[in-house]
């Protein structure tokens, strides 16, 4: 009896081992095959620059990742830790300042909240200003006439294979972008924004990154992290109560290729947003007294903020243009902003 039992056990364990090894071999073979397949896909298809950009867009939204990047402008640079989560259509992001004073930025889809030192929270009041981006623009690609897209070979960055892409402006109203995209995921790992003279205005690159399968919501949700939203900052673009309720604004001059992309349902809206698909600028029109910005332009890296005081007849207002466009472009837009009276309003 015993010998039979022993024999059975031995046989069982033998079978077990055999099965395990077969599975292991099978899995690794399958995995190797998959790797080879994806590598050959990359080679065979020779993705165009446009394909890469589409891939980059998708990866930015739908990939779960955790990493640290360095963002520099001129002589200033900062190290930021980032977590990005995507789950069933909800995109969440958390950026943590690692240099200088502690500060965090949280994003949930299009809603952004800033947590500054002393738990001071800055959040745009969504009730007063609704910014529903026109769905046609959600996958907006820059037009060919505006930028020249090019692939520039592959490279190696933080231990990963990357594809180099250049997006070169074809007129003086936008900047040049150079991108390094992760070959495996399509995610942007490094980029520079250069002006027409080739000066680097902004430099961004990951120093480390990992792609976990899942991230918990607790890691990226400010409320769940215990952030007390005690203070809500007032919306920065206050309308002037003296203005007729229906007053709308428009920029009489726009650089080519930029289209208005915000669709505020509120009448008399005083924030305009324009984009060419890559570069975006926002125009704020406010009572001139409440606008503190200095006249003229101030530049932080690739971002310009241009303030222009205008007085026409009874109306005095301040126009602020902010975006990643050349300063001269911002100036020309700001100076062209004018009111459009709705019918029936005085």
């Amino acid at each position, binding site marked *: 009896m015993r010998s039979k039992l022993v024999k059975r056990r031995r046989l069982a364990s033998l079978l077990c081992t055999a099965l395990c090894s077969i599975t292991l071999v099978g899995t690794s073979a399958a995995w190797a095959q998959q790797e080879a397949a994806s590598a050959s896909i990359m080679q065979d298809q020779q993705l165009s620059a446009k394909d890469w*950009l589409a891939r*980059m867009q998708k990866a*930015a939204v739908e990939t779960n990742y955790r990493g640290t*990047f360095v*963002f520099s*402008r*001129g*002589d*200033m640079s*900062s190290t930021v830790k980032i977590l*990005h989560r995507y789950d069933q259509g909800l995109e969440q*992001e958390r*950026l*943590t*300042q690692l*240099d*200088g*004073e502690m*500060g965090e*930025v949280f*994003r949930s*889809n*299009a809603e*952004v909240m*800033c947590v500054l030192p002393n738990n001071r929270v*800055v959040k*745009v009041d969504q009730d007063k200003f609704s910014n529903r981006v026109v769905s046609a*623009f*959600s*996958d*907006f690609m*820059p037009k060919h006439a505006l930028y020249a897209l090019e692939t520039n070979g592959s490279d190696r960055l933080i231990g990963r294979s990357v594809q180099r892409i250049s997006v070169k402006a074809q007129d003086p109203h936008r900047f040049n972008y150079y991108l390094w995209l992760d070959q495996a995921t399509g995610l*942007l790992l490094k980029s520079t924004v250069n002006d027409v003279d080739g000066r680097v205005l*902004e430099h*961004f690159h990951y120093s480390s990154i990992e792609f976990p399968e899942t991230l918990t919501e607790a890691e990226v949700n400010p409320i769940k992290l215990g952030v007390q939203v005690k203070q809500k900052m007032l919306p*920065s*673009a206050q309308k002037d109560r003296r203005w007729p309720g229906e007053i709308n604004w428009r920029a009489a001059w726009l650089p080519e290729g930029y289209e208005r*992309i*915000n669709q505020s349902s509120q009448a008399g809206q005083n*924030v305009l*947003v324009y984009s060419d*698909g*890559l570069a*975006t600028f*926002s125009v*704020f029109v406010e009572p001139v007294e409440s*606008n*503190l*910005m*200095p006249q*003229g*332009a*101030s*530049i*932080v890296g690739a971002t310009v903020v*241009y303030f222009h005081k205008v007085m026409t007849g009874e109306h005095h207002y301040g126009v602020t243009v*902010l*975006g990643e466009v050349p300063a*001269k472009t911002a*100036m020309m837009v700001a100076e062209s902003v004018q009111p459009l009276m709705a019918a029936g309003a005085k």
Partner: protein
Amino acid sequence: MDDRLKESISALVDDEANELEVQRVLNSRDEDLAETWMRYHQIRDVIRSSDPEIMAIDIRDSLALELADIDDLDALGEPGTVNLDGAGEQKARPAALAPFKRSRVAGFVGIAASGVLALFLATQFQQSLQREHAQEQLAQTSELEQNSALELAALNTDESRDPVVIHEFNEEQAKRFNEYLLRHAEHSSFGLGRGVMPLARVASVNSVGI
């Protein structure tokens, strides 16, 4: 500038100056002091063969041409040493070369060579002085820039429109800028603007205490 001062400068360049000479140079108010100092250093560098650019110059051809122009070396008058004063351009002509007889061309060439070299150095020095001035100004400007929280950029336009004016923010303005930037980041969260860049801009602004 008298010879004594020149000698003191030269000694200082070679680390052979005594106390008195050091004092003489340091207390000198001579306006050519800086120029001479630079030039002596350049000459020292050449002699020590530390500048590959200068060492690569072969003056044999041009020297041969110069010598060919001098029909009668004897008629040039008394021999003299090559003068390395600031106006080197004028002095380094064939006539300034020591007028030896043709039979002493070998030794003559040595001095001639240094004469042509002096010409080269004088021109180079003028150029490098200009470059240094420009660099100094740039360095001063970039120091200022580093001190302010936000980068100041000078803009030039190629058209007749006035260039935009640049400002630094005070604390209130910086806070307002941050608010605008936040809202703008929301606007940018679409299309190719998707991804971390708009938020990185907001986050990095916070890092400088705004």
